[in-house]
């Protein structure tokens, strides 16, 4: 509480409106002993610097969070990334997760799906159903969401280069369930730029990829207004070895590129900007991570308002998903990973994330078992319901250390964005390898620190024990690949192949023009054209990207 006029103004406007629309989870939040937990702690002497740099939650520049009451109003979405084997197996896992209190789905696709190959393609050998679920046609997607009401559940899909095809399948499945398009909620990752430098599931060269992304922005703007059209991801950049500063700088540089491309195509800023979402990594350096999330939020607000001139506050808000850092998990003494994940998840919550995936303890060894996934979800529930950190907003604000870190990350990440722009922008800096080198150098330095014991990894380079018991692992049976191929072969015989060919021809024709391709892809999907067939048409028109090694 404060009697500063800026505080009063915030309390009477943003806060009052928010409380009216989203009542808090409890009438009172208390410590043991009945003392009340303050909603928002603020300095006794609010000055101009506080108002410029921090302000109040739900208010520009959003350093303290995008909602006035944050988790007192609603907890973050506990969204566990899952999917493996066949659509039927993954469907079972999703229903298990929903039964255990997960509040949003997050679909992992296998690598052939992510790269636009059908399960029977030569390059799919050994990869079908391994790191996610295999989806070849609409039929697989129907199985994947069987008995899951798409009007109620929000679904995040980790799909990039072929995002348009999977989104089209999702839209058609929802339609078959009788769900109105306006009610479809979720996110597609659809962030191709980071694929060229970090994650590797690119198909087409950068420029036509950016066109597909812009087509999706435009189509969703008028058809699925509640769907997030992109999740601009620092997660994988960090996993590839970047520092926290590079994660923010490179991610926001990519975001700027998407916004500029959409503006150049004539889209309206305040229509598409509010459906841009972000995805960050929660790694082990607790306070630096908290500062990173806060800095990213402030930077994006300033970029959107000051640089692009967005006028709708929704366009200024950086809303993000977080996943704990997979690369920090160790194969040694796997239970230690539960502790690492707890600390990382805590940083995401202290940093104000909108949704969170916690990794499972056994992921340095294989895909997680059902039991370890449950522990990972329980970790979030303990933080949410027992730790008390969700009962007040932005609890670390005003810490000299955290505020200095926040300022430093903003300064250094802004400098990196400047260097990329001086180098001709993101696409030019991917093509000449500047961005890749930034990440590789950081990755190498990190590994050297471990080798030289400047950095201690418990159980790996110190506190090592001889382990005898190994945890049970989840294995994807090799038959999954053969069965998936058999299903696809049958379907290709049974569908109306003239219809498929006609829809693919129309797609090829329009790919040469600047027509929005989304409706054409929906038509292909509806005819049960396969993902590989659709992507092959686009490969023919757009060409394929090869990395620069």
């Amino acid at each position: 509480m404060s009697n500063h006029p800026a505080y009063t103004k915030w309390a009477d406007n943003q806060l009052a409106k928010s409380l009216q629309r989203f009542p808090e989870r409890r009438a009172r939040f208390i410590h043991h002993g009945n003392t009340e937990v303050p909603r928002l702690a603020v300095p006794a002497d609010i000055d101009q610097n506080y108002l410029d740099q921090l302000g109040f939650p739900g208010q520009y520049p959003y350093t303290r969070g995008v909602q006035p009451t944050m988790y007192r109003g609603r907890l973050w979405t506990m969204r566990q990334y899952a999917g493996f084997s066949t659509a039927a197996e993954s469907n079972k896992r999703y229903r298990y997760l929903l039964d255990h209190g997960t509040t949003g789905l997050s679909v992992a696709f296998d690598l052939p799906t992510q790269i636009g190959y059908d399960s029977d393609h030569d390059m799919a050998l050994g990869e079908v159903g391994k790191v996610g679920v295999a989806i070849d046609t609409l039929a697989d997607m129907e199985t994947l969401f069987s008995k899951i009401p798409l009007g109620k559940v929000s679904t995040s899909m980790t799909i990039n280069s072929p995002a348009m095809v999977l989104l089209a399948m999702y839209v058609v499945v929802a339609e078959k369930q009788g769900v109105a398009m306006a009610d479809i909620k979720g996110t597609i990752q659809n962030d191709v730029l980071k694929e060229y430098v970090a994650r590797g599931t690119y198909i087409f060269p950068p420029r036509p990829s950016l066109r597909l992304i812009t087509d999706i922005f435009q189509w969703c703007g008028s058809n699925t207004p509640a769907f997030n059209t992109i999740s601009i991801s620092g997660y994988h950049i960090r996993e590839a070895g970047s520092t926290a500063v590079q994660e923010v700088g490179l991610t926001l540089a990519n975001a700027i590129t998407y916004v500029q491309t959409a503006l150049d195509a004539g889209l309206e800023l305040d229509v598409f900007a509010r459906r841009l979402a972000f995805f960050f990594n929660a790694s082990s350096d607790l306070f630096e991570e908290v500062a990173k999330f806060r800095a990213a939020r402030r930077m994006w607000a300033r970029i959107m308002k000051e640089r692009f001139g967005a006028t709708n506050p929704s366009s200024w808000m950086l809303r993000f998903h977080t996943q704990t850092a997979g690369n920090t998990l160790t194969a040694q003494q796997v239970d230690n990973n539960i502790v690492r994940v707890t600390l990382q998840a805590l940083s995401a919550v202290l940093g104000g994330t909108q949704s969170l995936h916690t990794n499972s303890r056994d992921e340095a060894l294989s895909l997680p078992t059902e039991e370890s996934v449950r522990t990972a979800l329980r970790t979030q529930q303990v933080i949410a319901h027992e730790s008390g950190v969700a009962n007040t907003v932005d609890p670390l604000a005003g810490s000299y250390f955290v505020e200095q870190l926040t300022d430093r990350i903003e300064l250094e990440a802004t400098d990196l964005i400047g260097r990329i722009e001086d180098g001709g922008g993101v696409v030019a800096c991917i093509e000449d390898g500047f961005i890749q080198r930034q990440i590789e150098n950081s990755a190498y330095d990190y590994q050297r620190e471990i080798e030289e014991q400047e950095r201690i990894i418990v159980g790996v380079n110190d506190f090592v024990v001889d382990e005898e018991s190994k945890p049970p692992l989840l294995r994807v049976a090799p038959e999954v690949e053969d069965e998936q191929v058999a299903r696809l072969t049958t379907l290709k015989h049974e569908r109306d192949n003239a219809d498929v060919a006609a829809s693919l021809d129309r797609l090829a024709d329009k790919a040469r023009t600047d027509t929005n391709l989304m409706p054409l892809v929906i038509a292909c999907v509806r005819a049960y054209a396969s993902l590989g067939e659709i992507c092959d048409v686009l490969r023919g028109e757009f060409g394929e990207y090869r990395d620069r090694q």
Partner: protein
Amino acid sequence: MTTKHRILIGKPGLDGHDRGAKVIARALRDAGYEVVYTGIRRSPAEIAAAAIQEDVAAVGLSSLSGAHLRLFPAVVEELRHGGAADIAVLGGGVIPEDDVAVLLAAGIKAVFTPGTSLEEVVQAFAAVCDEQ
């Protein structure tokens, strides 16, 4: 140190996680080897052809997607087909312990699981190169 050999680091299959592959390529370079990195998403045949063309002493493979049981032996097989059975193949990645023996039996000379130090990896390459 005697004359250093050439080494090819390859990413078979569709896995794009090449942080480890790149770090190892660099560590081998720092140890004095001439290292060729294929880049990601290469087929076993492409990797074997590159190894033969570059006349390397050893190939290091990396996969984190669980496809190692099919892909690593496929590279060994392609090298044999190409008349280059003498090129040693080593591999690493997210590989469950039970699979290590399977890979060794399929002709992979050494298998590195998460947490292996760079020193250990460099020594294993040195050992197979010295046999040449």
